[in-house]
């Protein structure tokens, strides 16, 4: 098992995400909560990094900051070569639109839209013509095995199928960073494996990076790296390309 020094392991051009000394505080005075306490982390291009740790350790806060939906209190967050801390709110919105794909725990699909319309949402947000967006969404849905459910409503799909639509939506605009929050927590073991298989097969590309927040140890073998968090800090980063990560299972995860 190899433990990285997250600071010096990679050069700047190799990393999709570089986090240095990031802290995040919520509240103030007696109610001050330190969710992150000086986090350092690198996510290289072409890697699928799993962020694991007990509930409340700061995984969600960290991934929110990396995805640009939350502002760090201190520290440096470089994503795809851009300093998120230096960006204005509107710039972050555009950055997310163009570069980040999201897969959420509860899918957050739009129930009024069909499968293909849901998958096309990021392209429509990006200003694509509807017909072109639908065409692109159809292609990726085909790859995900949902070619026969294009016009179904979301409520007509199983949980596994809904998660596949969410993956299609996250990847349709070819983002260079994919952020997945507990993508398998609502799925049974088989669907969980299928979901991670799809993510690692389609999303992991040399010029992209994938971060998966998960508690599900059954899917650890899809990881290229596993970063273990505890009490607002990264405790270890394991390289799974050279070492099996699932046995023995990581503590507290």
């Amino acid at each position, binding site marked *: 098992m190899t433990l990285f020094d997250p600071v010096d392991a990679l050069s700047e051009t190799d990393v999709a995400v570089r986090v240095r000394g990031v802290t995040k505080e919520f509240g103030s005075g007696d109610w001050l909560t330190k969710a992150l306490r000086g986090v350092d982390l690198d996510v290289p291009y072409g890697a699928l990094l799993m962020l694991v740790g007990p509930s409340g350790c700061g995984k969600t806060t960290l991934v929110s900051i990396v995805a640009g*939906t939350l502002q760090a209190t201190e520290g440096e967050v470089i994503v795809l070569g851009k300093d998120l801390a230096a960006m204005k709110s509107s710039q972050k919105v555009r950055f997310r*639109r163009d570069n980040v794909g999201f897969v959420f725990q509860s899918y957050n*699909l739009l*129930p009024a839209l069909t499968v293909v319309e849901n998958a096309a949402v990021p392209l429509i*947000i*990006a200003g694509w013509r509807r017909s072109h967006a639908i065409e692109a969404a159809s292609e990726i849905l085909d790859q995900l095995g949902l070619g026969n459910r294009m016009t179904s409503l979301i409520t007509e799909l199983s949980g596994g199928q809904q998660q596949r639509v969410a993956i299609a939506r996250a990847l349709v605009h070819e983002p260079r960073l994919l952020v997945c*929050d507990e993508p398998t927590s609502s799925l049974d073991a088989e669907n969980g494996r299928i979901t991670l298989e799809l993510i690692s097969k389609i999303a992991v590309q040399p010029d992209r990076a994938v971060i998966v927040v998960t508690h599900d140890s059954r899917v650890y073998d899809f990881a290229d790296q596993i970063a273990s968090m505890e009490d607002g800090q990264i405790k270890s980063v394991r390289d799974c390309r050279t070492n099996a990560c699932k046995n023995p299972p990581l503590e507290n995860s």
Partner: protein
Amino acid sequence: MLIGNRVKYLGIVFGVVFAALLIAQQSSIFCGIMLLTIGQIRDVEGPGIWVMDRNVEFIDDIKPMSDTDLFRVKGVKGVDWAVAFYKGLVRARMEKGDFHQVILLGIDDATLIGAPEGLFMGTLSDLRTPEAVIMDDAGYARIWPGEPFVLGKVFEMNDHRAVLVGITKASRTFQSFPIIYTRYSQAVLFAPSERKVLSFVLANPKPGIPAEDVCRTITTSTGLQALTRDQFMKKTIRHFLMKTGIPVNFGITVMLGFLVGTAIAGQTFYLFTIENIKQFGALKAMGTSNRTILLMVLSQAVQVGIVGYGVGVGLAALFGWGTRGLTKLAFFMPWQVLVLTAVAVFLIILLASLLSIRKVLVVDPAIVFRG
């Protein structure tokens, strides 16, 4: 998004429909009542000028003038012709001894100016026969309910015999009493004896002279109040608007419709937003700008507003159409009612969506990562 949640969608539409229906229906009834107040002015189509005592405020506010005032008006420069017109409330005694309050209109003996149009039984020239009267169909049905229309019926007014020689369709009046037309000389006999009996002088300006100018000349030369037909209608309506509780009562109902509609639509819209806040958060996380989110919410609100307005106004119109012959409900839906309802619906959806708009605009996109 909203259409995907059918129950919420219908809830909001219902709120808007309720408000639009109540506002359009009550406003139309109000307009109908206002129309009733000027029914008798509208029915007298020939003359362009009404001359009356200077203190008269509306059509039913009779302050008799001297018969000589007719000649004074006739003598004013610019007046083409002028005729006497009587209007009063009298008691009619029927064959069976029952009494009815009726509106008695006395028109010029020679020209019959002021006579009703659209007689559907009898002829207008029969009015020249002694004791002849014409009655409106609604009044006939009120006095002789269930009986077929028959001419020749005899009754008494002020101990003078009256013979029904014609039945006409007249505009209903605010007082809803039967309307009886007769010649002026006959009306004077039917009316209780008074020193002055001339209610109005109906006049017309000479061709090419504006009626307003002639009215001013009449007022200056005679001291009487002279109004064009339109001015008199407006003055009458203004009286009912300003000096009665009718607008306030209808206004309260309209306001209640507005408030209840806003409450239902607003609450449902807000609940819908709260329930879908994660979807909005997801859209924001994916890079949807606040402007786009705002447009999304507003477009849904506008869509609901259009559907609610259409259904509400449609139902109000249907109500008016359905009750046109069944009841004595006054109902008149001019374009202004449609505009008023549209403005109210616009305000309702704006107010209803304001809270939701605020909620979705301030929602933190990071909400999607919270369990």
